[in-house]
């Protein structure tokens, strides 16, 4: 229906991704004659496969609710803003982390902190949108999140499972925006259990009979309609073939962390988030482009120190184990890890011992993707007097920098469905951060 439907070759969930061979095999075995036009549509798959390009992927550790910079990556022990928060030394002299980050401190040499992120959004929903897309909410258009951009811009070899995944999604998981719902993150819960809606308990012949029967109904709907109805408009049969392929794929095992060695699982921590980080690593090894893993509970308007500390206890082992494993597997340069939330928290404590929303100087941590580690850029006023941080970096600048490390030109303009061209990011690449 929509002529601007942007499904370039090699993007997530496009027809190009369905293996022609699998489909033909499927078609032969099940007698899915009605699916063959689809397989013809996929004949370009071999040509579309990229050659000799290093895989590039992103893991986003999403700290939902807004972590306190003061109790995580930007502690000011002994200052007016600390209210008792202490700092620990790390492997990098001069860079301290808040108490509780014992594991991350050991791998600090691979991590770079940006302690001066600023935005104009202090409401959760708007700030999440801002942080995930690099744009402020705008009723004219829905912007794609980083993962959707990466999937859209970087061609891929053929695979069974979706390449944009959100583990433990909260109410605002990463979206495809103007690229379309087929670029939305594929959502999965705690990877301890099976992936939802993928299990098919039916006996093989019953499933095959259903698929054959469906061909009869599809044929009757197709009468009097354009021959390329499915490929050009509905994508119904195309996505169904993809779903079938996913359901039968060995790659699904990547989601199941129970198959990883016990020692590895222990390193990430016995938590849903820890398992999510391990699953992210396993998915990346299969070729997934972007995984978002959410750790909720940072919105500490009450009892800030205790609640933040509990979250740190979950984040610390998982983040550190992920960096170690990426390094050990030689994936560090081809993977960018970003850890952060929608905003930070106020330097002052409120009467309930909580910290409120603070978009004017908060922290994110980055690792891998060719970014030199062991650094801390920018900083906030330890006494909380000055609102503006030193060397402020905007949210859109973070986005531009991430795209840059992935070899994507942030200024590239996309013609959106409403007809207006938009840059992938309107920020500037922070040279100090990415080098070059």
């Amino acid at each position, binding site marked *: 229906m929509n002529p601007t439907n942007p499904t370039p070759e090699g993007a997530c969930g496009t027809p190009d991704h369905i293996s022609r061979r699998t489909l033909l095999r499927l078609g032969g075995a099940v007698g899915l004659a009605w699916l063959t036009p689809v397989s013809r549509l996929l004949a370009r798959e071999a040509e579309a496969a990229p050659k000799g390009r290093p895989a590039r992927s992103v893991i986003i550790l999403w700290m939902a609710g807004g972590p306190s910079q003061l109790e995580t990556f930007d502690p000011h022990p002994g200052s007016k803003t600390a209210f008792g928060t202490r700092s620990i030394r790390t492997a990098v002299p001069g860079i301290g982390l808040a108490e509780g980050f014992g594991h991350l401190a050991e791998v600090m040499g691979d991590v770079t902190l940006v302690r001066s992120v600023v935005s104009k959004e202090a409401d959760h929903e708007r700030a999440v949108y801002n942080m995930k897309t690099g744009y402020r909410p705008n009723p004219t258009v829905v912007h794609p999140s980083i993962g959707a951009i990466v999937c859209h811009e970087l061609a891929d070899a053929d695979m069974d499972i979706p390449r944009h995944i959100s583990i433990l999604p909260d109410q605002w998981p990463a979206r495809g925006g103007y690229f379309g*719902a087929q670029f939305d993150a594929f959502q999965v819960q705690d990877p301890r259990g099976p992936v939802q*809606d993928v299990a098919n308990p039916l006996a093989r012949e019953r499933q095959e*009979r259903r698929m054959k029967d469906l061909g009869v109904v599809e044929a009757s709907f197709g009468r009097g309609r*354009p021959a390329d*109805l499915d490929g050009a408009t*509905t994508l119904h049969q195309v996505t169904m073939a993809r779903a079938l392929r996913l*359901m039968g794929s060995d790659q699904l095992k990547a989601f199941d962390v129970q198959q990883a060695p016990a020692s590895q699982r222990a390193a990430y921590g016995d938590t849903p988030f820890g398992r999510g980080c391990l699953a992210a690593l396993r998915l990346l090894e299969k070729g997934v482009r972007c995984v978002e893993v959410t750790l909720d509970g940072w919105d500490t308007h009450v009892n800030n120190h205790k609640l933040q500390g509990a979250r740190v206890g979950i984040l610390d082992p998982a983040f550190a184990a992920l960096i170690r494993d990426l390094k050990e597997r030689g994936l560090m340069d081809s993977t960018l890890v970003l850890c952060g939330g929608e905003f930070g928290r106020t330097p002052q404590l409120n009467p309930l011992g909580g910290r409120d929303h603070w978009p004017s100087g908060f922290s994110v941590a980055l690792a891998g993707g060719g970014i030199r580690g062991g650094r801390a850029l920018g900083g906030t006023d330890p006494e909380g007097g000055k609102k503006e941080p030193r060397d402020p970096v905007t949210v859109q600048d973070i986005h531009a920098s991430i795209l840059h490390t992935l070899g994507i030109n942030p200024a590239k303009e996309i013609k959106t469905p409403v007809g207006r061209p938009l840059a992938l990011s309107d920020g500037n690449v922070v040279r100090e951060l990415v080098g070059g």
Partner: protein
Amino acid sequence: MPCQETVPDHILMADAPARATVSSGGMRPAQRERMMPWVRNAVFVGCCLVVAGMVAGRLLRRAPFREPPPVTSPAQQVAGFQPVSERVDAAQAGEWNGAGVTPASRAPDLVLARRLSLALTGTIPSLEEIRAFEAVRPEDRVQWWLSHLFEDRRYSDYLAERLARISVGVENGPFIVYRRHRLVSWLSDELRKNRPYDRLVRDLITAEGIWTTKPQVNFVTVTIDQNNKEEGPDEQKLAARVSRAFLGVRIDCVQCHDDMFGDRWKQKDFHQLAAFFAGAEMSMTGVRDDAAKPYEFRYLRKPGKEIVPPRVPFHPELLPEEGPLRQRLAAWVTHPDNLPFARTLVNRVWALLYNRPLHQPIDDIPLDGPFPPALQILSEDLVRNGYDIRRLIRVIASTRGFQLDSRSEDPDHPVAVEQQKLWAAFPLTRLRPEQVAGAILQSASLRTLDGDSPAFTRVLRFFQENDFVKRFGDIGQDEFDGFGGTIPQRLVMMNGELVRERTKENVFANAATRIGVVAPDDDTAVETAYLATLTRRPTPVEQRHFAGRLREGLTLKRSGRMEDLYWTLLNSTEFSWNH
């Protein structure tokens, strides 16, 4: 037991529990008391089954209901809409002629019933409704169906949710001071009374008081920044909503700078509109107006803030000179001569019915045209008839264009893109998630799931929170994106809980099982399943194929075969698309 005599033969032969009922029917009370609990249960189950069978059996009969459904003559209910539909027909025929495009033929009546149910209630017709629809004289069916839907609570509930999305969006908004569901309920009550649209909008723009007792106030309070409550309602967000939702202009694009794509709007146009909301403040008694509070803004490349006077961006002559600011603004927005207001509603109602707006983008209609002729004709009629939403729906639904098929009768010359563009064939569009959920639930019941049914209400009222809708992927406010289906959608339909629960063996809850039990023969079972899911009868090929499936010597139980038939129909393109 009286039911013994009235149960049709085919139900008695259907299965064991029914026979058990019959055999225990003649017992004396004393005997009954001695019955073992399981026997009592069997009797209870059996009785329920027989009653269910009677209802289902009646619906399954091919013959229509004996008593005619309550049809008031369309002419009595609505006067004078037909000439307007005909003017639209003439205008569209002119466009088709000019472009050398042949329109598709008229869609079958049942297709029209399905379209209208999906558009106006968010679900498909029930088998019960289909029987009633077909009992009406063919020439009266569409008008009767519209009257039937308008009187249904589902209509006002569904339209209220759609209008709420336009006026306050889908955000949960600021906790405590915002109650979205109150606003939706209020809208639904007003739509049920068919309150004129201009009055609804005036209420929203001028609302005062507490968001719980005066639900329309939520239009204002949704814009409050939770972190900055003392700042009160956000004038800029309100101005953006008013211009987009009610006037079909995107003045908010010039919030930060003058128009860069044309010279129509200046930055001050937006902020002068926002200035009408400057006085709206939070007080102990909810939203109130403080007439003395000015709106201040620092324009681009200006040294400092200045007081911005309230002014409207076009048709200044329609703005009342006296009165409180928001009242003046509301009067201007809804002024009969302010045609952009009427055009915006026409475009939205058109989109509601077709699942595609007449002018795209839906909220960016040029003030000076050119307009599609239908937009002009319908807008003028809307104003003349006091912003009567039901009349507008009736006029559009009665046009030849709306009643065209989405396919060609000649398979060798399928529908072409050009035909769809010019509305010379009904556009094929993806159903919204809540429409799919509503259709699954309805197809699992032979009776109509109306507004009082808990399952249906849950899907509609809370479709934002609904697990199925979430997994299927709520499209939020970007209503008409024109994208195709997705993998998670196929997974949730193929393997998800909702479809599995509503198609598996359950003779009380699921139509799939019941049809298999009470249908007199396999052909009827197949036909009934098609009517209940796809609102049509099977083609001869389909009929032969699926009746054969029910007959063939498989080890699978009959309920399992009916489940398979239902699964297949629910997983078809046809089920998930509006056509």
